[in-house]
């Protein structure tokens, strides 16, 4: 995104009222699969768009990392939703969500191999061919890796971005979760990624469970993730950062405080005040 949007939020029907009440909001994301391409928009989302808030459709079920070609119908839906909400870009994940005709119900990691890079690149190109706007790709949080990784995470991601021209949707909570669960340094990944390609950034909370950190989106954003936002912005401040919350919604005051904490960490104005 060429323009600077500051702090945004993932729009969800459960918090539509809260989002509508954010006076400084200029940017929100909506799960693409939750929007009808031609029918009515979810209540509240249309008002946001009319108000001039930029809304970006975020796909979760394309399965760009699947070995089989992306479903053209799903791609068409994403393209139509982008047009419907007048989005300047759309986003999806570097992951697969189904295989052998079975839905995993979740975003699953790919082996960091040349073959997997080829599969993602082919699907991203098929998708880009149908889109009228740019596509940004999000690396996921994963609790496990494949046994036969050939490439470092940074090389794997950079090669996909270079070969497709796609933008990077960097989720700092995913960077934190993966580093913590692998016992690596999240700053090393930040130093190796092409941060000038970051279209926007996700921030979210999680929780530890049986020794593993789970990227739940249903807990408050922990301080180390906010610190990582600061580290990222010191290196290259992205045009937009947004909070992802998907359940166990806290009282409005807590959500506002979380948005303000992201704004402070990034050095952007608070969106909770006019």
């Amino acid at each position, binding site marked *: 995104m060429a323009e600077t949007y500051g702090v945004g939020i993932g729009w969800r029907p459960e918090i539509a009222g809260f989002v509508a009440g954010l006076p400084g909001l200029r940017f929100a994301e909506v799960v693409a699969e939750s929007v009808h391409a031609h029918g009515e928009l979810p209540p509240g989302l249309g008002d946001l768009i009319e108000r001039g808030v930029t809304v970006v459709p975020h796909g979760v079920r394309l399965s760009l990392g699947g070995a089989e070609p992306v479903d053209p119908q799903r791609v068409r839906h994403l393209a139509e939703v982008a047009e419907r909400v007048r989005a300047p870009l759309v986003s999806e994940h570097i992951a697969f969500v189904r295989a052998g005709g*079975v839905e995993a119900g*979740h975003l699953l990691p790919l082996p960091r191999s040349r073959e997997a890079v080829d599969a993602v690149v082919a699907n991203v190109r098929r998708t880009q061919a149908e889109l009228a706007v740019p596509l940004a790709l999000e690396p996921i949080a994963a609790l496990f890796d494949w046994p036969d990784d050939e490439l470092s995470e940074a090389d794997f991601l950079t090669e996909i971005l270079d070969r497709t021209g796609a933008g990077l949707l960097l989720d700092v909570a995913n960077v934190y979760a993966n580093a913590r669960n692998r016992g690596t340094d999240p700053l090393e990944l930040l130093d190796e990624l092409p941060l000038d390609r970051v279209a926007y950034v996700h921030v979210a909370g999680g929780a530890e469970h049986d020794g593993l950190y789970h990227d739940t989106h249903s807990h408050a954003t922990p301080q180390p993730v906010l610190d990582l936002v600061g580290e990222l912005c010191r290196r290259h401040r992205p045009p937009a950062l947004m909070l992802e919350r998907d359940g166990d919604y806290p009282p409005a005051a807590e959500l506002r405080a979380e948005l303000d904490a992201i704004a402070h960490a990034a050095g952007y104005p608070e969106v909770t005040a006019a």
Partner: protein
Amino acid sequence: MSERDLAARQAELVAALTSGKPVPQGFDAPRVEAARVALLRKRAGEVSRQWPMLAASFGAGFKREFARWAAARPTRGSLRDGWDMARELRLTGAAAEELAGREVSMRYDGAAAPRPRRSPAIRSAGGAVVLQIAGRVRVIRRAR
């Protein structure tokens, strides 16, 4: 690894996570197990939002019961997961009415995606009768 191999290996991994199949060779089995359990927890949360009365009928034990039911059943979306589970149970009270409300509103054969009914429908649910006329659902409870 050819693309065919990648497809087969992705399918093996999905089967391990959703159908109780063994963890493919070389993977960190406890980590894959943690992902499997997290996935079932996530599905249980989605079903309880879609089927609040079904979930409430289990009290605090719903996530555990759902995880047991769903362990070898890959998701078909939270609407159908909850519907399939509810049909296998002898539900009473609000959970039975919730199921009956869905049954009279949509036609669902257990195989294809549910479709809205065009004609009126009626179901009994424990002590109540649930009927749908012109898309409106009414619950008629027997006087005590």
